[in-house]
């Protein structure tokens, strides 16, 4: 067993850190998209719009039932062959779209469960004061469902940050892609991948900290 090349590892940290904004940026963009899409699908699943409901079920089933890597390849390498408009799509965009669709399927189910978990009396109270279904959902039900779903959704965000590493297979130089290139030049694979692992870990730990603060804020309404 040889000793770790600590100097190399320290030198690598700032190089990989330079790609953190891209990683976080992709995850954030995909998270925003997934939250919107998932909320729409969750509301649809609760109110069950005829026909549309079948599409939503099929969508959720497909994106939960196939590996993210396969989905990314399908978008980036496959779809442009069928739809020439997509020929110019770059890896970052493809990765964001793939992550959005994939995670929205999971998140829709969590949000749906959270909506169904809100007490029926809250619906009735909203209806009784004359709110429309949409107003009841937006002003009373969704905010309460958000509190229930928040921990799970943050977990998905954490998962999403780590999953951005798959963008490297679409030729995107993000944290993982950069590390791979550095390692290929130095042949110090263990050091390089250890550094990137620790950096991912650090990002996730920071998020867990924010998660606790978010939950405390959302629980404000329920504590004496």
């Amino acid at each position, binding site marked *: 067993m040889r000793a770790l090349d600590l100097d190399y590892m320290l030198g690598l940290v700032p190089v990989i850190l330079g790609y953190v904004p891209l990683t976080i940026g992709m995850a954030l963009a995909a998270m925003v998209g997934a939250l919107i899409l998932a909320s729409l699908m969750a509301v649809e699943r609760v109110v069950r719009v005829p026909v549309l409901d079948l599409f939503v079920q099929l969508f959720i089933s497909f994106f939960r039932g196939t590996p993210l890597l396969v989905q990314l390849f399908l978008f980036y390498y496959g779809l442009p062959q069928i739809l020439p408009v997509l020929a110019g799509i770059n890896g970052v965009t493809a990765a964001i779209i793939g992550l959005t669709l994939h995670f929205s399927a999971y998140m829709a189910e969590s949000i749906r469960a959270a909506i169904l978990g809100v*007490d029926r009396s809250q619906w*009735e109270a909203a209806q*009784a004061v004359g*709110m429309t279904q949409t107003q009841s959902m937006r002003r009373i039900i969704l*905010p309460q469902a958000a509190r229930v779903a928040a921990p799970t959704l943050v977990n998905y965000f954490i998962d999403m940050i780590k999953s951005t590493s798959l963008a490297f297979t679409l030729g995107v130089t993000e944290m993982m892609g950069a590390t791979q290139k550095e390692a290929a030049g130095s042949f110090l694979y263990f050091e390089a991948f250890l550094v990137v692992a620790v950096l991912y870990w650090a990002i996730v730990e920071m998020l867990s900290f924010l998660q606790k603060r978010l939950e405390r804020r959302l629980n404000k*309404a329920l504590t004496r």
Partner: protein
Amino acid sequence: MISIRRLTKRYGTNTVLNAIDLDISAGERVAIIGPSGTGKSTLLRCLNYLDRPDGGVIRIGDLTVDAATARPADILALRRRTAFVFQNYSLFANKTARENITEALITVQRKPRADANARADAILREIGLVDKASAYPAALSGGQQQRIGIGRAMALDASLMLFDEPTSSLDPEWVGEVLDLMRQLASRRQTMLIVTHEMQFAREIADRVIFMDGGRIVEQGPPAQIFDAPQDKRTESFLRRVR
């Protein structure tokens, strides 16, 4: 001013409301009493379509809603002329006491926020909860929650206020303050339809008492008549049991 004709509600083969006819004039305070499971709450819940009646016509002022033809817009219009006070308060859990009162003023009545807040503050003073304005429901006692629930209903300026056993979930120590608030409302000749088990209270504030049993109105009249000289055996035996 309010007329109800042949209001009917069934659950499967069980007829919970059997073609109820009822008229209520403006400013009238009507109490509904009767054994559990006789359709008192269902009547109230059908009046604002929290439960959709299977048949019957409800008329409030110039608005007519027929169960056979009611569209969502009619139901919304009906709900906007009534206010409902729930047995379990059902305050919006994600809103403060004050926001519970302003919520419908802003989203339903489209009042400017400042006006809604002014109205809420006036109501909070009236119900004696100014100091709880920014408290969430979870931090309030049952009595305080129900007073906010009544405040939320007051803010709507509804033609008809419906009270569904407003004190039945309360610890005995909080019942008094809620009844006091309802007395205040009654003294202003707010039109009220109250399902209650508080017989003394019904006798004291109601212009008319209705006794229901088996999904029908069995007997109705001024409190003195119903409580002291009931005409129907069922009324008599019910009153004997609850006394």
